[in-house]
């Protein structure tokens, strides 16, 4: 799972019917300290995350195990909103 920040939304009118009603957000991966890392990723939101929020995203086939994503064509899902990251 990766830490990421919500930096935008995606609107798609024509899409797979199984994605209807799902919120798509653009994520920017971040380090545990909060610094931006390379690349962007589009993820399905399962926890009602908001703009600029730090979130936990799961990738690969595990994303389909998130609630509401069963048997949907999804490979990245937001599964948590991060309150705090503690580094030793």
């Amino acid at each position, binding site marked *: 799972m990766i830490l990421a920040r919500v930096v935008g939304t995606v609107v798609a009118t024509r899409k797979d019917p199984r994605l209807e009603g799902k919120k798509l957000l653009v994520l920017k991966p971040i380090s*545990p300290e909060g610094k931006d890392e390379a690349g962007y990723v589009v993820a399905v939101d399962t926890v009602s995350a908001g703009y600029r929020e730090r979130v*936990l995203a*799961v990738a690969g086939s595990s*994303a389909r*195990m*998130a*609630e509401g994503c069963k048997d949907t064509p999804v490979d990245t899902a937001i599964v*948590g*909103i991060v*309150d705090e990251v503690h580094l030793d």
Partner: protein
Amino acid sequence: MYFGRVVGCVWCTTKNPALLGQRLLVVQPLTPQLEATGKRLVCTDSTGAGAGELVYWVRGKEASFPFLPAEPPTDTCIVGIVDSVHAQALAEARQPTLPDPASVPAGAHRKNARKPPSC
């Protein structure tokens, strides 16, 4: 499976219900020689690993298998705590260090060469 070291933890109040009760730890991936490599990531934990501990973790759908029959949405999971690693000797045996050709005198490789058996 990969080596890693637990370097922190993550709190999430709002999360997918299937992740309730899961510990979320920040893990720094390591080489077999225990040097840091790659980005730190967040893993669920099936072993009760603690801060600073050397662990091994799996990636992919298999990461949710330790929690069966529950299927939490996780793609990285700590599945073992490492007691000791014997990878150093193995790595050296596979990649022998050759002497610098400049420092070896000419013909030195022949000095200890086995002589043909005399009749």
